[in-house]
């Protein structure tokens, strides 16, 4: 069991919502990962659908590169759509 690969678990909490990352767990294969995810993450009625993906298949950004990746966005407030006056009729923005 120590050799079981790690899986990432995504759960959709309600129909209409997207799957969100809930956590990770160990399992021997995809079938077992689904069953484990069901028991670990949805036993309190948290979900209606589960995705599992082996963690090694996820390509992650390198924290060392966060300077070039993310910092340039910090001083560009004009990229936020906050410079418009919204008519009163428009709701939920």
């Amino acid at each position, binding site marked *: *069991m120590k050799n*079981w690969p790690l899986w990432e678990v995504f759960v959709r909490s309600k129909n209409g919502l997207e799957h969100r990352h809930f956590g990770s*767990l*160990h399992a021997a294969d995809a*079938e077992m990962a689904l*069953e*484990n995810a069901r*028991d670990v993450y949805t036993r309190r009625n948290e979900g209606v659908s589960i995705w599992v993906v082996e963690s090694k298949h996820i390509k992650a950004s390198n924290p060392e590169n966060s300077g070039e990746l993310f910092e340039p966005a910090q001083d560009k407030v004009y990229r936020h759509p906050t410079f418009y006056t919204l008519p009163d009729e428009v709701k939920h923005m």
Partner: protein
Amino acid sequence: MKNENLIQYIYGIADNALILGQRLSELCGHGPSLETDIAMTNIALDLLGQTRSYFQYVAQLSGDNKTEDDIAFLRTERQYKNVLLVEQPNTHFGYVITRQFLFDVFHFLLLQELQNSKDEMLAAIAKKAIKEVSYHQRFSSDWIKRLGDGTEESHQKVQEAVNDLWKYTDELFHMTGDDVKTEELGIGINVALLKERYYQKVSEVLEEASLTIPEMKWFQKGGKQGIHSEHMGYILSDLQYMQRTYPNMKW
């Protein structure tokens, strides 16, 4: 039929869930991995939830201010009617899974029939419980296949568990007097008729797991009459301790 026959009949079903649930609860925090630990505890909670539904019904049937707790905690050993299979100890994971599997297959077949009981309450409990038990059966069957078809060691361990536990399977299909009386009225299930389907399902899974059913001519019995193995006393002393030490204690 008297109420007492129905009550005894319900004990025959509910005590299996109670004692197996108690056995699985002992494993809480000791599972071989976090994931299997949670899964087993989950099954334990399902079974104890079902037990509560049955005992609340028994409390209602017996009147005289009895509660589900009195029924769960204050009977003596001979008054528990669970089969010997469910009281067998937690030795290793393969053994626990085999015990679970041999019971789950029976439990599923029983609930399938009980859904059509003329007793509306029992039918309703069965309808709710069968979804849980369907998952239990899937979980334990999957593990039987993994272990049977896994390493040499896991195969050997789970085959030994099958060899050891097989002698408790025949009792599942014995009809008690209360079984007969309730069955005549369309309330109880004729468990003897489930035997063929049980062996078919069990052999199917065991075969896929490259495991074999041992040749056996002699089977253990007694649990349904309240005559239990040595393990039962220890289970009950754990189970009943709080209620016996602090009578009428509530959560």
